[in-house]
């Protein structure tokens, strides 16, 4: 940076001057002092918590006193591996997270494409604002809205009946979860996809057209590969947020809708088995680690 060329400043008077001069000549010292409080917060609280979570997963609770027994063992993991019910739960969670991600990618791409490459500047700004509002509008409120829509006498069945179709009772099923998750995380997919599409250089698209490629060929061979990192960046959010959710399964899911998060949640409540909950929650962490690794290989981090 140009900083070095400036040399030593000569401010006039005041007790703060020597300090300022020291910080100016030793920028790393200033950075260190500034970085210490936030870094300390993260290391002392957040990382200590994450490490403790991992350690706790290898402890157990005493079945009589529900006190945590700090003895290193793999009972919790054996239980998860040996009981088929947990395989089903993990499978369901991952499958639905993948399905939601795919659905959102398909819903978002044409929308983002229109925003980035067809709409006028004014419409672009309006659409961006229109995506921001549901992105921030209360999560619980939007889940609740779907309870109102999907229930027996809700808007969906009323609409179906008014055009002469039989009612669809999808409330409190996995289908309801799929719809609600896709709805809630859609803005998280639209925005990175839009950002990536907007960065596709116009010259490449024109070059492709000049070389005789038809519109769909250009989209497939030029636009899509260049926009892929944006889609993958969005998918990190749709996938991770679905993977770790337990509120939506609890509120709009049914008897067969248990997610990893629900088991974690129920184990910290009445059962008060934090070690088992900790062991279960290492599964989404491991899955996300693999996912982030693949995403990084696909160039999503450059879009982050």
């Amino acid at each position: 940076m140009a900083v070095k060329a400036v040399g030593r400043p000569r401010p006039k008077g005041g007790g703060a001057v020597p300090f300022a001069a020291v910080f100016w000549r030793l920028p790393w010292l200033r950075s260190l002092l500034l970085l210490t409080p936030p870094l300390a917060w993260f290391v002392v609280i957040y990382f200590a918590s994450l490490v403790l979570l991992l350690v706790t997963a290898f402890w157990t609770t005493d079945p009589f006193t529900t006190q945590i027994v700090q003895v290193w063992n793999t009972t919790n993991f054996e239980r998860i591996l040996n009981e088929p019910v947990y395989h089903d739960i993990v499978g369901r969670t991952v499958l639905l997270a993948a399905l939601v991600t795919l659905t959102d990618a398909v819903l978002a791409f044409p929308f983002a494409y229109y925003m980035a490459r067809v709409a006028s500047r004014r419409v672009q700004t309006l659409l961006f604002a229109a995506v921001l509002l549901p992105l921030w509008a209360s999560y619980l409120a939007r889940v609740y809205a779907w309870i109102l829509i999907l229930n027996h006498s809700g808007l969906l069945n009323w609409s179906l009946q008014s055009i002469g179709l039989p009612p669809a009772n999808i409330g409190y099923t996995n289908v309801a979860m799929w719809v609600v998750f896709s709805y809630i995380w859609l803005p998280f997919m639209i925005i990175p996809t839009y950002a990536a599409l907007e960065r596709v250089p116009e010259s490449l698209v024109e070059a492709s057209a000049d070389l005789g490629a038809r519109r769909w060929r250009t989209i497939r061979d030029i636009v899509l590969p260049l926009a892929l990192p944006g889609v993958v960046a969005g998918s990190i959010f749709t996938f991770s947020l679905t993977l770790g959710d337990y509120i939506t399964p609890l509120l709009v899911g049914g008897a067969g809708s248990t997610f990893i998060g629900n088991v974690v949640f129920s184990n910290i409540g009445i059962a008060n088995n934090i070690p088992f909950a900790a062991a279960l929650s290492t599964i989404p962490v491991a899955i996300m680690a693999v996912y982030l690794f693949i995403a990084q290989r696909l160039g999503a981090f450059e879009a982050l």
Partner: protein
Amino acid sequence: MEGLWTRWLLRTWVVLILLFLFIPILLIFLYAFNTSNIQSWPIPGLTLKWFSSTFDDADVRTSLGLSLQVGLIATALALVLGSFAAFAIHRMTWFGREVVSLMFILPLALPGIITGISLKAFFSFDGVPLSLLTIVVGHTTFCIVVVYNNVLARLRRTQGSLIEAAMDLGANGFQVFRDITLPLISTSVVAGAMLAFALSFDEVIVTTFTAGAQNTLPLWIFGAIRLGQRLPEVNVVVSFVILVTIIPVVIAARLTGGGGAARVPAAR
């Protein structure tokens, strides 16, 4: 370059997605005025009676008070820690900068349940009773990143030459900060604070793990929906929460020209 047909198809798609995004939100506001206490469609009539009964509800008022308290304290903490981090990282050139950057983003990239259960295990291990303080700690941890992102983005767009000029003209460190740096970054700091508050005011996943017996507003809503009780009041409270989170976001978006309020990676 798109043909007439393609444009027409894309426009239809955009309209359908917009309807999909907004019908549920508009529906919530409409249900808040529902005369019946049964939540079915179409609603029989419009009334304002639930607004006064919600306002008189002691539980709602207590949880609103707690939510405001948590939101304000967490925002204040995140403001200081996030700005400090942004200033430090902005000047850093060593390899650790990417690692530190990734670290601050982690609470948003990892599923919320991980942050929640980790903190729960941490507090339980340290024997810290769950209270207002533990909720604040959880909220601050994921709020730091929004302040950090906004301030850092602004610092990157700020020209170093202005600061150098001020120093050449004899301003001391404090004067440079007060007269040059602060005015340049102030809107991004305010935007970061607005978003941090919005994030905190609506958070439910981490809060369920870090709250003891006390309820924030989202926890009250969650409980009421789960039990299917007091739904007319839920309609009102939920509409209120949407407004309270949207207003700061609109302000933040205006202060940063849109990109700062994106929550997900949108602009470089």
